[in-house]
């Protein structure tokens, strides 16, 4: 590093009296100063629930990806997965904040992330499972990001301008996530016999949870023009997955969808066994020290 470059960092340190090198010490509302009023004709309660769903998907999946840190095969994959998890956490923060504002009961993002119970989370079950290996990580990331990219592409024109802005920003990020995952699925699928078999097995483990991503939902039905119908995403996502699987010499698994419980699944707050353990870890610090600041 040249002296000039170093001087740039010095200027940061000297100019502020109470400078803090560690980020994350001054959290502010991620939607601060944004007009959060709900447009006329949009059901505010349904919008709040919908933003919770999309925010929970990102929050829980981000946490699962963070659990991979220090365990990935190469440093480059560490930075990639850390950045993808960070993008999703950023999306989760804005969506939970949006949910809290639309709800109008004064719940902020931290309250929603750390002080809700398991059955109050609305995420799809795809994001709850612990990946068995790197192949499962890339397969799940491919399915998740291809689906979320198709969803956010449509939400970029949502009648709720805040949701539209969050989605439009997310599209740029998710394009990178999907390409990263697709390139790894192809590398492993079209790699050695062993990597092919592991990749194919990983898809088999993930596929029972894919169907749930495209199920009709009554919350979506209550938000015409503001939410996107999951059923309409299927063709676009299938086209992407088929392209990647063909290039990777992998077969689309024939797997029956994971059973629902009395007709309910992730979006209704009914989750898999792994979710309770995940949530216990995710929420433990905030619950041990409620309202702590540092």
């Amino acid at each position: 590093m040249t002296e000039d470059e170093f001087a740039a960092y010095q200027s940061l340190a000297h100019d502020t009296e109470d400078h803090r090198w560690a980020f994350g010490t001054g959290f502010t509302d991620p939607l601060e100063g944004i007009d959060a009023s709900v447009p006329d004709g949009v059901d505010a309660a349904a919008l709040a629930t919908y933003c919770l769903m999309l925010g929970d998907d990102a929050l829980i999946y981000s946490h699962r990806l963070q659990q991979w840190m220090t365990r990935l095969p190469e440093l480059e994959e560490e930075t990639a997965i850390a950045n993808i998890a960070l993008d999703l956490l950023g999306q989760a923060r804005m969506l939970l904040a949006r949910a809290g504002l639309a709800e109008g009961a004064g719940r902020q993002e931290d309250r929603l992330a750390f002080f809700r119970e398991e059955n109050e989370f609305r995420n799809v079950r795809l994001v709850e499972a612990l990946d068995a290996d790197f192949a499962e990580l890339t397969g799940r990331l491919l399915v998740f990001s291809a689906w979320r990219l198709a969803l956010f592409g449509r939400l970029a024109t949502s009648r709720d301008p805040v949701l539209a802005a969050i989605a439009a920003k997310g599209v740029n990020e998710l394009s990178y996530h999907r390409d990263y995952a697709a390139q790894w699925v192809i590398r492993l699928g079209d790699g050695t016999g062993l990597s092919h078999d592991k990749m194919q097995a990983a898809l088999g483990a993930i596929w029972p949870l894919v169907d749930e991503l495209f199920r009709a939902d009554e919350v979506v039905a209550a938000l015409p023009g503001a939410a996107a119908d999951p059923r309409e995403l299927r063709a676009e996502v299938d086209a992407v997955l088929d392209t990647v699987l063909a290039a990777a010499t992998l077969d689309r698994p024939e797997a029956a969808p994971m059973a629902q419980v009395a007709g309910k699944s992730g979006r209704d707050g009914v989750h898999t066994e792994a979710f309770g353990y995940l949530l216990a870890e995710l929420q433990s610090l905030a619950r041990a020290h409620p309202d702590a600041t540092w």
Partner: protein
Amino acid sequence: MVAAAARAADVRAARQIAGAVPDPELPMVTLADLGILRAVECEGEGERVVVTITPTYSGCPALPEIAHDLRHRLTQAGFTDVIVRTELAPAWSSDWITAEGRRKLRAAGIAPPGPAQRRQAPPGPVPLTLTATRREPVPCPRCGSADTTQTAAFSATACRALFRCEACREPFEYVKEI
């Protein structure tokens, strides 16, 4: 008339101070260079400055630091009431990095972004990229060679990728087009 002129001078001064704040992740460039400073306005009788910024990526952890630096520097310059607002739409694009910002990045050994690929009007699907091969080569910021290879699509921050120059064999960072 006098008040209006004083107020215009205030806005100019505030804009200059805000625009000169260095980015905490890329301190060789300023907020104005990066294109994340959306607006600087005075409200009321000029005692309130409202600065509007936009995040590069959704999870950008530098945003609270940037807001803190803006409040601090404007307060030091005598503005007593400083408000920093975030604006999400339209989403930030690397195309907003100024020519001066690109020059500074290159001088610091970081390759500036090429033009961002714009999709057709949403909700058109985003095309897949199945290989790391790029259509436009990224020239090495040190030796200028176009013979470079991407080693990772992500780097120390969300906005950068890692490259290696095959001519001078140096690794370098590249600000991704988005």
